[in-house]
């Protein structure tokens, strides 16, 4: 999409400059050729720099647009209750807090209502310790795996109030570079701007026996029965 205000500005500039055209002598061909060569030299430096920076800025691994991520985190952890079956690399973080209370209230930011649903699976564990495990849900764009940048924020535990606030909305800023239309028919991996499906965040909460867990906000709470 062309920046219309810039286009408007350029057109106005051309219209204003048109009457001066005859007063200002047309530049000599040699001068223009030299300017063009200087322009080319600057672009060569720019192009080489772009090569150098592109290599170091490749932040996300390319998986391919065709690869469907298995929705197994929700399935494995929530449906099947087998969190231990999730491989290590799918765990975004695991955070353990000392906890002596008898009640725990979970809070999830509810600004987006049920669109920001979090799924929490509770299981019983070691006394005096509360462990929050967050899983890394896979998000693909144009075949790139953005998971590294989209892991949920760590929760905050308020010991006195017995409240565990799940991470707020995660914001990720991305500069996306489109492939030129010239190369699209010749390169299989041309960008189409496609997104993969996105799983709502899945947490595993390991709480000591006897602690009762309640939820506030858009939370789907499930407990694993031993």
């Amino acid at each position: 999409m062309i920046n219309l205000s810039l286009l408007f500005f350029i057109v106005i500039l051309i219209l204003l400059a048109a009457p001066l055209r005859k007063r200002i002598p047309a530049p000599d061909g040699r001068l223009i050729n030299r300017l063009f060569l200087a322009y080319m030299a600057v672009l060569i430096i720019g192009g080489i720099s772009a090569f150098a920076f592109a290599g170091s800025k490749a932040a996300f691994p390319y998986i391919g647009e065709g690869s469907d991520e298995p929705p197994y985190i929700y399935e494995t952890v929530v449906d099947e209750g087998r969190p231990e079956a999730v491989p290590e690399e799918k765990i975004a973080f695991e955070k353990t807090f000392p906890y002596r209370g008898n009640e725990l209230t979970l809070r999830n930011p509810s600004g987006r209502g049920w669109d920001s649903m979090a799924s929490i699976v509770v299981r019983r564990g070691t006394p005096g310790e509360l462990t929050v495990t967050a899983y890394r849900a896979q998000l693909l764009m144009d075949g790139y795996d953005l998971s590294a940048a989209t892991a949920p924020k760590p929760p905050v535990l308020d010991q006195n109030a017995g409240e565990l606030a799940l991470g707020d909305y995660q914001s990720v800023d991305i500069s996306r570079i489109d492939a030129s239309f010239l190369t699209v028919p010749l390169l299989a991996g041309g960008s189409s701007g496609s997104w993969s499906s996105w799983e709502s965040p899945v947490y595993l909460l390991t709480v000591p026996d006897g602690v009762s867990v309640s939820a506030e906000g858009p939370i789907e709470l499930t407990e694993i029965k031993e």
Partner: protein
Amino acid sequence: MIQLEFEKAEKRFQGKTALRDLTLSLEGEKIVGLLGRNGAGKTTAMKLAAGFLKPTGGDVRAFGGPVFNSLLASANTIYLSEDTRFPYTLTLGGIIDELARAYPNFDRGLATRLMDYFTLPSFMKHASLSKGMRNTFNLIAGLTARCPLTLLDEPLNGMDAAVRKDLTSVLLKEFIEAPRLIVVSGHQLQGLEDLFEEVAIIDKGRLLIHEEADAFKERFKRISGKADAVGAATEGLRVLSRRQSLPGMEETVIEMEPGTALFAPSGAGLTVSSLSLNDAYIALTGGMEGGIDRVYADTARKVKP
């Protein structure tokens, strides 16, 4: 030896014939005047000679072949006129550079000096020059290119008398320095006419005369005196124009047969003088007898056109 030949050359533009059946051979290093009234076909003939136009019929040859689309002819011919379009972005200095690249005999040093002399700044653009300055530059460029065939179409148009005089000297000096075939066309060639070795006169698209300039000039005489005496003296001669100079007085231009002499009767009070080349060709290609005076006289007498 350079030779430019028109052989039954004809040129038509969208049905209108600009030049017909022109057979003319110019040969050797000389300055030739190609004369004619407006619309006579001079420029068409010059453009045919330069290879700019393709003859509709006949042939125009130089350097051993037809000139149209010939690289050899183009490399050895320069045609400059008031309408010559140099690349409008080039300065005069830039045009000189390009001409020097295009024509191997181009004398850049002389061109620069002449430009300085005629106060033509090298940074100026050709299109921004006045008509006289543009023609001055064109003439300098055309002469210093030193092409074996140099075609100058109306080169002195728009110039003041001092510049015309100087450029006439330049033309002569250049011809002496580097003899070549220089064809100068036009109808305002006062000053240049003394340089012509030959003249070719075109009228209404046809070649009227081609001969040595001096011989041509000598054929025309102006006889003036009392009207009846002039009438008697010119009886049987070819009168080209006749006009009343004062009441009862007449001035007549006659054309004599080649090789003949005119003997004016003595004591009749007649004055016989030679014509300039310019006047001679005007008389030859003139319109109705009596010239512009006749138009006024006819109007006064209410003669129907």
